[in-house]
């Protein structure tokens, strides 16, 4: 097994909790109970750095210019 990335084990090791013997914990805060209308009344959820960093990566189009890679992305 290749070595884990720094800090990975602490963040992503499945840990028993809430009576669920096996679950995987995300680094995203759960907004399941937040209504759209309440979105701006609650504190900023935070801890979405990874999500935003991934989102900001440049993309290419399939139709509107640029090359779609090779037909299917994979």
């Amino acid at each position: 097994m290749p070595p884990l990335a720094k800090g990975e084990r602490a963040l992503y090791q499945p840990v028993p909790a809430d009576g669920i013997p096996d679950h995987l914990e995300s680094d995203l805060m759960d907004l399941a109970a937040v209504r759209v209308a309440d979105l701006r009344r609650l504190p900023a959820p935070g801890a979405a750095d990874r999500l935003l960093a991934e989102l900001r990566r440049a993309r290419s189009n399939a139709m509107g210019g640029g090359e779609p890679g090779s037909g299917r992305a994979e």
Partner: protein
Amino acid sequence: MRPVGRSHEPTGSDVYAPIRMPGPLFDEIAAGGGSPEAVAFLVRGERTRRLLLLRELLDLLDADPGILGPLDARTVWPTLEAAAAEAPEPVEELLLSPQVGSWLAHALRRLHGTASGPPLWADAGQIAAVAATAALHAGTHAEVLLPARGGAVSLPALGTVRLPGRNGDGFHTVRAVVSGGTLTVRQAGGSDIVVRPLDGAESAHWLPVRRLGTGPGTRAVQLDDLDPYRDLDEPIAPGRLGPEELRAWQGLFDEAVAILRRGDGSGPGGLRPEEISRIVPWRAKDGDVGLPVPPAGLSASTGDAFASMVVARPPDGPALAETLVHEFQHSKLGALLHLFPLIEDDRTEAHYAPWRADPRHLPGLLHGAYAFVGVTGFWRERTRDHGADPEGRAAFLFALRRLQTRMVLRTLATRARLTVPGRRLVTRLSETVDGWLAEPLDPAVVARARASAVSHRVEWRLRNLRCGDEDRKALLEALRSGSGPTPAGPPRITPDAGGYWQDDRGRLHLLGKDRPGPAAGGDELLVAGDAEAARTAYATRLAAPAAPPTSLGPDPHALAGWLLAHTALHPQDRRLLARPERFAALLSAAPPDRWTWTARWLAGGAPRA
């Protein structure tokens, strides 16, 4: 999954708990399939992502309302908020639509400077159209300024308002009033345009999004030829399908749905059609002449728009069904990646992907493996479904894809830096494919699939890899001096790797023709089992003055064929196929009449000169 109380000045980490995915649901997705509950969990994660992105965008617009230029920034959030309070469910559905997903992600990339597009105010200003659409669903009242492109105002997942007398492609604002499910566009100096987007039929002023039925009581799938954000990132113009094209899509989709309904929707390779949100028809344009693939096979998707896919119209229903399965796999993996980092983001394009012409990076390989586990499972199901496989190719495709997918999973398991969830994913996928590899198939079909897999890999290496310089020097010196071949070093990627090529031998293996015609070339002879004649045909092609060496060296297709024919005649030399680029490196020092001897020497089977 609920906020866990408030403190005096709560912060995000005080108020929210992390998303926790039950292991059994993760394993269902990780094995390549997914029950309705498992897919619903992914959708729940997507909802959280959309809320986070919407909050981010609203905060950015608050910080700089000037971004929206001529639009009225003050009306946007109150309109959306009022609609969401009045009718949470349809507004939730709107937020989860692929149109809003793609636009929201694109708008944030625009603001971050990693995407381009129309004037920023119009791009970011689509939020006003989202708010107006929410008000339409909720039946609330709103007065908003909307961005328009030429004569089109786009309402996400509903359709397009057409403005008369507006030609060209320029961006401008229109004033609109929403009330009781009706949208009225006020025109300066002209009469108002009134449309009912929720239930209005197509008219001079209204183009609704088309929908493809999936069966009684199940959600229809959008066939979106209108929305500006229906491509993978930057906005594009509407491209309304004509009646014939629309009928063709409906027919293909009906056929694909019937095929998918005959299978197990929850296992790897299965798909419940109603879980697809949208199909975007892809059409070749004049400017697509230089596409790196034939347009007929093109399909694509983005993690920004869960369950949506761009698809070129395929030739038949089974092909569409396979494509839907393939692209939905990407959506599931994209959603899983939003929840958990699975693999270190190493973007070095160096690895073999059997479904591509070029070298691929490891995250791409993971996407490919996940998609092709779905495709493999799809063809496995079709081996028992003759209605979807009239030409009897399912067994071959199942045999081929299970081999290729397993190879890639092995690469991921040994070469990629996987997180704990990532390793669990690769392990579950491998278990799925290992189970399939143990299933009996006609030995002749298995042999054909194996030959096809090897052929693709050998040609891929000759096209994309070169013997390392030191390795090549040492090998040439050994050949000249008459000593044994030197150990192999690491290959290097060719500078011009990545060009598209068609796997012609693979196509012949699929067809399974065992009787070559009178004018058969090397490929036909090889696939038919006449290795001697094939080797001669390939040698002739390689020596022909009409086919001089390319920048890739000797014609890689013919050279791969020559090696495949040689190793069919000398099975003990099969090790040559593992690193065919080493044989290619020797050709400059070996005249054609010495190739067989050179090949035998490199494989360790020839006597020293």
